[in-house]
């Protein structure tokens, strides 16, 4: 009888021992879990109140240390220059710069955004990254990496030094921490970027206002036998196309130009060109070739690459002639009574900014009463319809011929209407500008 009882008691004792051991183990394990949970639970709540990325990352490092008993932490951030990384530890002392081999790891982590335990890098998942990952671990004393990747962009990488292999539960919680820190860090980054974008928009707007101030004071004007109207629409916030008109003694000087490249940079160059035109006109320089040569010298810089096409026309009050010179710009058109199709005021010359000593030739022709000259930039004939077919020079000529008998403002509106009808809602990709000058 004793044997079975002893067997039973023995079995019970074994079971009790197992129970006690398991109890102790799980208690320790769950104690770790409980602390983890507590530290992680409100991470996002805490981090949303933090002002900057470094604070969020420092908070994440502190949370990693509190929740997992990590002895130290390192933070790797993309540096100001592409391909360079900064590394720092929460605290006053910065770490050494990231070594060359470690940079490859960061590029790889961009596509492998999950917790990496550096003790397990022998696995096939890590491939050629085994060696640099090992070096990283050694160099910075971290054994767990949390890549913080948001919208295909690496915000930072948090490295923790646990000094042991994390339990499966801890591994799961580390992944949770990674997600939470990513969310908080992305929030700070996006907030900063959105704020920066607003600043940039404001900056571009203000710059556009300065450029706009150089536009002709009046889009419609007349002097003596000449009257003129202009239309300009920038494809972006600021444009590189420009026109200037000067009511000078003895006639009217009109310059139309287009900076290759456009945008704010183009607008800056066009501002310099317009300012130069203003100064030349103020000094009484009205000969188109002389003006273009002078402006070219004013904006040309050795070894600098920017180009401006321009055409300058001087409408002489006394002679009724138009004199023009061209610096690589589309030829202006002129409609004359009796002509079926507008003729072109042909001319050749290097673009402004192309070479220091560019010279230009002034040509002349007479204009009769009612003749209309149209100057334009290439954005007009290149306006696309939904089928990606350009408006073209031929249609522009026809549009000009069709408005020969209209008043000048109405002629401008009709040409504009023809362009818009052609585009049929397709947004412009280039600035559109044209100016009409008519002999009364």
């Amino acid at each position, binding site marked *: 009888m004793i044997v079975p009882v002893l067997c*039973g008691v023995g079995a019970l004792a*074994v079971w009790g021992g197992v129970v006690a051991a398991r109890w102790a183990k799980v208690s320790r394990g*769950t104690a770790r879990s409980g602390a983890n949970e507590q530290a992680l639970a*409100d991470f996002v709540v805490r981090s949303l109140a933090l002002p900057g990325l470094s604070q969020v990352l420092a908070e994440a490092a502190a949370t990693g240390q509190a929740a997992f008993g990590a002895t130290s932490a390192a933070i790797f951030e993309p540096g100001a220059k592409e391909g360079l990384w900064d590394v720092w530890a929460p605290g006053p002392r910065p770490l050494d710069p990231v070594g060359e081999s470690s940079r490859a790891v960061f590029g790889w982590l961009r596509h492998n955004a999950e917790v990496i335990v550096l003790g397990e890098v022998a696995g096939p998942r890590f491939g050629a990254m085994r060696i640099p990952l090992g070096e990283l671990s050694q160099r910075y004393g971290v054994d767990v990496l949390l890549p913080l990747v948001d919208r295909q962009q690496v915000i930072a990488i948090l490295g923790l030094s646990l000094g042991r292999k994390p339990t499966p539960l801890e591994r799961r919680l580390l992944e949770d921490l990674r997600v939470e820190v990513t969310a908080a860090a992305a929030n700070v980054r996006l907030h900063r970027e959105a704020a920066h974008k607003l600043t940039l928009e404001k900056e571009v707007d203000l710059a556009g206002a300065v450029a706009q101030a150089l536009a002709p004071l009046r889009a419609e004007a007349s002097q003596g036998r000449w009257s003129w109207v202009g239309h300009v629409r920038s494809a972006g916030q600021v444009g590189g196309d420009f026109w200037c008109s000067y009511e000078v003694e003895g006639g009217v000087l009109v310059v139309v130009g287009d900076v290759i490249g456009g945008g704010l940079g183009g607008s800056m*160059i066009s501002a310099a060109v317009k300012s130069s035109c203003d100064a030349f006109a103020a000094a*009484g320089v009205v000969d188109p070739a002389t003006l273009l040569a*002078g402006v070219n*010298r004013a904006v040309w810089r050795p070894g600098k690459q920017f180009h401006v096409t321009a055409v300058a026309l001087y409408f002489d009050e006394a002679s009724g002639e138009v004199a023009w010179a061209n610096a690589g710009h589309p030829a202006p058109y002129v409609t004359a009574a009796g002509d079926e199709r507008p003729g072109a005021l042909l001319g050749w010359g290097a673009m402004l900014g192309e070479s220091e000593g560019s010279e230009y030739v002034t040509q002349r022709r007479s204009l009769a009463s009612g003749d209309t000259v149209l100057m334009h930039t290439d954005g007009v004939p290149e306006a696309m319809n939904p089928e990606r077919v350009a408006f073209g020079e031929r249609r522009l000529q026809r549009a000009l011929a069709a408005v020969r008998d209209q008043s000048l403002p109405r002629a401008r509106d009709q040409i504009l209407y023809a362009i818009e009808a052609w585009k049929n809602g397709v947004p412009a990709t280039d600035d559109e500008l044209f100016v009409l000058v008519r002999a009364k």
Partner: protein
Amino acid sequence: MVRWRIVQGGQGAGRGSSGWWLASLAAGLPGVGLVVAAGNAGLGSALGLTLAGGGVAALAAAALAIQPIIDRATLARGDQLAEAARAYLARALLARSLQDLQLELEAMAQRTLGVSRTLLIVPAAEGGVRVLGADVPASALEDAEAAFTWLGGHAEPASLGYLAQIGSEPGPAATSALMTRLGAAVAMPLLHRGMLLGVAMLSAPSRPPPDEQTFFRILGAHTTVALANSYLDAEARGKGTLSKDLDLASAMQEAIMPDERPVRRPGFQLRGAFRPVAECGGDMWSWAELGNGKLLIFVGDATGHGAAPAMLTAVAKGALETARQVLGDDLDPAELLSAMNRAVHRAGRTRYLMTGFAAVLDLTTGELKVANAGHNFPYVVQRGDSSGRRAKLEQIIARGNTLGAVAEASYTTSSRTIAIGEKLVLYSDGIIDAGAPQIEPFGEKRLRAALLGLADQSAPRTCEGVMAEVDGFLANRPTADDMTLLIVERLAETAPVTAPKATTEFDGGAA
């Protein structure tokens, strides 16, 4: 039958798994009872006892085998909820639209809390608000403004019970009424950096969390960060294009500025440095040989820094280069400033102004003609010599209106002599203000000390030395204003300076 006892709360260590082990022990107790009973019943029960012992051992083995599953199943309720909230965050961050976000919240609340109704209330593009998660009649949202205002200020989740407790103030009352109309029992304001992005509302949970306030605060934060990141991502889109645009503008500005490499020509040598604080800067500098042994130098500083002042510098540069051509070697600094004033006034419309200092140095006679438009007074540095004469600094005092303040302005040209070996130092206030406002600025005193310390150096080396001093002073700290420095030294060589190529005579006549 084993009854799993789930410990509620989850904040304390080990509650989840200890709960399971208590349950295991309870399941084992009948076995112990059986052993005791069998002992009393005598030998006939030996088989039963053996079976009992074996059963206990089998139970222990089974317990070990299923331990991982049990561990997970018996996580404290609070821990389970925290885990669910984090899993929700991971999915919510991937939501492509507000509808997706609402669906993620709904799925989580339904599965974890047994919530039947989940609403996400966000501002509508056309004004007012839109409710995602249910068709809500417009009448239900009437007078919602008071509720949203209160929730935005309250910044904490609010349940109907809590609202009833805090009294009948207009805000809580309106919130309570709105929640009742929408069939909600909990409202979570989604407050991001002081801005109410929306409100998430849940109906009464059938399995409420143990610590409702904490859990809903966390859930609200997770929803907030997902919603905010989605909004911010949309807002930040296009920044890359703008940045590129500004980078291009910066390149263009650089293109219209002179090369910063040292220049040495018969009669002079010079070096300039331009350090904008943003992509584009508001400072400018220029030099040009006017012909007949005359050298023009100019340093200017437009209001502020960034693209708009940079645009103004482009305008000023156009005017300067044109005046240089039109006036040639007759260029008078005062006349130049008047022409530049007209251009700056037109473009800046008095909103942007520019200070500027223009000087024309006759390299043969050493006569220096200067005119000032509100700019810092330049220095002339005299070297020390072997006879014991110490290096000396002298400021050129000249005054005039800032460029662009009025449509027409006149300036006065004054003159002095620059001896061979003397250096003329022009700079923008970004040099002396370097470091401000974060630290005490570099200041005139340090600039003077640096110039005296480098008095025996050539103009290019002096320029490099001063910039190195400023950099050392800043020690990588940011500074608030663009910095420009231009140093020109008159040399002994008196070889004739060739006039600029292709100078055109502008007679101003009609074409």
